[in-house]
């Protein structure tokens, strides 16, 4: 007789970490598709390089640190995909590999791997690259004509057919009058990071994650509200700010990263508001046109404190209301 003894419960739900990650990847596919349509096959090259290098760095670092292999939980794939989403399609590939190194080795594995990193790996990598290589990272491109990028295979893969253009927020900062229309911003026919351009595709993925109960609406909603508050106070156009730049990508996919955002719903609202307010402040009053990445990084660092401040009151009142024993 050899019976297994374990602590209850003796049944478990179906979900796993890997399945959660798979769903996040699925939610990012529409945005990837639209991006490929506008920017060409170069998008897929950049994405493949970041994903492959993230997975390889994860594998190697776990090996060196003599820890269990974790590439099957797919979190490295999600990081690679999100990192690529923050880069221009014209980014040199060696910079993509460097970004993957910062994300996986520096931000994630050096702090103990999945669940233990305190900043979002993709966000940190994006910031390190932007600060280290402002010229290469800031070379924004736009398709010569919508869909045209797919017509010539060689040019499409190398991205040679893309033409330089300022991002919508860049234009706003420089006082340009030739701003893209709301429709162009919604669909994604504009210069910018390859994954941030199509608001409609990102919203589709975000709604999917919310519908599946994988993320909650609190962070995205409060993120948007925070930004709108600052824009309104400064007399700007809130709609333009919501649908340009990386706000939707950041609010739905980066700020909602489980590991680096607060646990409780009130905590999530504080976190999202903080992200939105800082983004607005940087965009309107800062030296940079965009502030989504910095705002998330700052709020990541504050997360443990938000968690401590938002411990829920238990059913029954908790120890403060506990019956005093004589």
């Amino acid at each position, binding site marked *: *007789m*050899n*019976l*297994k*003894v*374990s*602590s*209850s*419960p*003796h*049944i*478990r*739900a179906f*979900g*796993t*970490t890997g*399945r*959660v990650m798979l769903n996040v990847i699925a939610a990012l596919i529409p945005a990837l598709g639209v991006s490929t349509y506008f920017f060409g096959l170069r998008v897929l090259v950049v994405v493949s390089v970041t994903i492959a290098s993230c997975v390889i760095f994860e594998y190697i670092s776990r090996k060196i640190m003599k820890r269990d292999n*974790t590439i099957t*939980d797919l*979190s490295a794939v999600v990081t690679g995909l999100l990192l690529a989403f923050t880069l221009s399609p014209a980014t040199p590939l060696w910079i993509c590999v460097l970004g993957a190194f910062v994300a996986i080795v520096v931000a994630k594995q050096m702090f*103990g*791997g*999945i*669940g*233990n990193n305190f900043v979002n790996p993709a966000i940190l990598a994006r910031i390190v690259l932007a600060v280290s290589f402002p010229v290469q990272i800031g070379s924004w491109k736009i398709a010569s004509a919508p869909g045209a990028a797919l017509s010539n295979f060689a040019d499409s893969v190398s991205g040679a057919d893309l033409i330089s253009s300022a991002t919508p927020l860049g234009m706003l900062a420089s006082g340009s009058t030739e701003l893209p229309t709301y429709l162009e911003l919604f669909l994604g026919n504009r210069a910018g990071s390859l994954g941030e351009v199509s608001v409609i595709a990102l919203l589709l993925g975000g709604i999917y994650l919310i519908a599946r109960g*994988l993320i909650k609406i609190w962070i995205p909603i409060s993120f948007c509200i925070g930004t709108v508050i600052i824009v309104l106070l400064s007399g700007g156009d809130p709609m333009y700010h919501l649908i340009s730049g990386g706000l939707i990508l950041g609010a739905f996919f980066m700020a909602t990263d*489980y*590991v680096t*955002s607060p*646990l*409780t719903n009130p905590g999530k609202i504080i976190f999202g508001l903080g992200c939105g307010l800082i983004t607005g402040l940087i965009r309107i009053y800062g030296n940079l046109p965009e502030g989504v990445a910095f705002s998330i990084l700052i709020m990541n660092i504050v997360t443990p404190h938000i*968690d*401590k401040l938002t*411990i*829920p*009151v*238990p*059913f*029954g*009142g*908790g*120890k403060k*209301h*506990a*019956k005093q*024993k004589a």
Partner: protein
Amino acid sequence: MIHNLIMRRGVHPDASKNTSELPTIRLESFAKVQIPMSMHIGAPCAPCASVGDQVSVGQKIGDSPAFMSAPIHASISGKVTAVKKVVSSSGSSVEVVEIESDGLNTIHDSVKPPVIESRADFIKAIRESGLVGLGGASFPTHVKMSPPPGKEPDILVINAAECEPFITADYRHILEHADEIIEGIISTMNWLGIPKTVIGIEDNKKDAAGLLRFQIGKSGASDSIRVKLLKTIYPQGAEKPLIFNTTGRKVPTGGLPHDVHVMVLNVATVRYVARYLKTGMPLVRKHLTIDGSAVARPCNVTAPIGSFIMDIVDQIGGVKQSPAKVIMGGPMMGVAMDRDNVGILKANNAILLFDANDAAIPEESPCIRCSKCIDVCPMNLMPTGIDAAARAKDLEDLVRFNTMDCIECGCCSYICPAKRYLVQGIRMGKQLLRDSEAKKKAAVKGEQ
């Protein structure tokens, strides 16, 4: 309503109520039973039968002078073959009385309906019946019926939620004995002076609820007894959420139902009250569900307390394959046993035998802070925080996260995508807090 906010918290495991349509099978003939002297919360009983004694059904074989205890009776007739200490599955030492059947099931002379003329008589009779909370907690019923002054209940809540997967013993109880359940409720209300009763039952058992309503109408108690349908969600039958969902009252942290003037009894418990008042036969048999992937023919049985798990299973068609896990109770809160040759207890409502596949223990991975455990916690706690604090042995954080409020329902571990053993961690945390409390007390004593 805030009401609804709490009701939504919990999980929806596969109900697996495979046995709900099967009438209860009465099992009579067992060669041997092993009856533990501690089947309740409180002081263990001292055996009052010795090796070689001839005992008969209903004869008292164990009792304790302590208030917080419940006597124990022979469940079959025959000869006492052993009175010994054994190590229980939980690792503690417990005294057992073994009886070898004479095959006659003779009923003891002491078994006759009790004469009750006062509230005190009633509570004394309940004590003599050996009744404990049959929902699983095994709290001595007569203790529950004697609240401290000023805490008298003004409402009786009957727990018929039966929210654990697999278990249908209470459901069958209602279908087969609804009349006695209502009788038991009325007697309890009359003798204890409780004006109102609400029966809480999940809305997946509408037929049982209908039957209860019919019996209430028949007994003319429609004004004082009410059936309330509750949302089907685990753990709807957990005491504190149940009280809230049936009466709107919140039991304070560290408190008991009588702190909000509520008494909660399981539906099977009140039925045994009625049985005992009519027949005087103490609690010697138990209704339970036998199920799980290793059982050939899952069903509901009633069997003598102390009959061995495998003897019961053998009598209903045996196993499909050798079980890899034996659980006393439901899959969410039941206890995994380290052996299958143990006797069933008073408060057992299910025995589950899992095959190797169902018994597989998932591999734990790091917490990804998805907050699902927080979303499902019926007590509104932060399971992942408690678990981390327990593993780090951080007493300050254990207090901060309200560790002692946990009811160990298992929702957090169930839902966790990282398959963390959250309940196990929380139990560890509770033990750390208890140990430190005991140490503090000892230190204070030492100073005096």
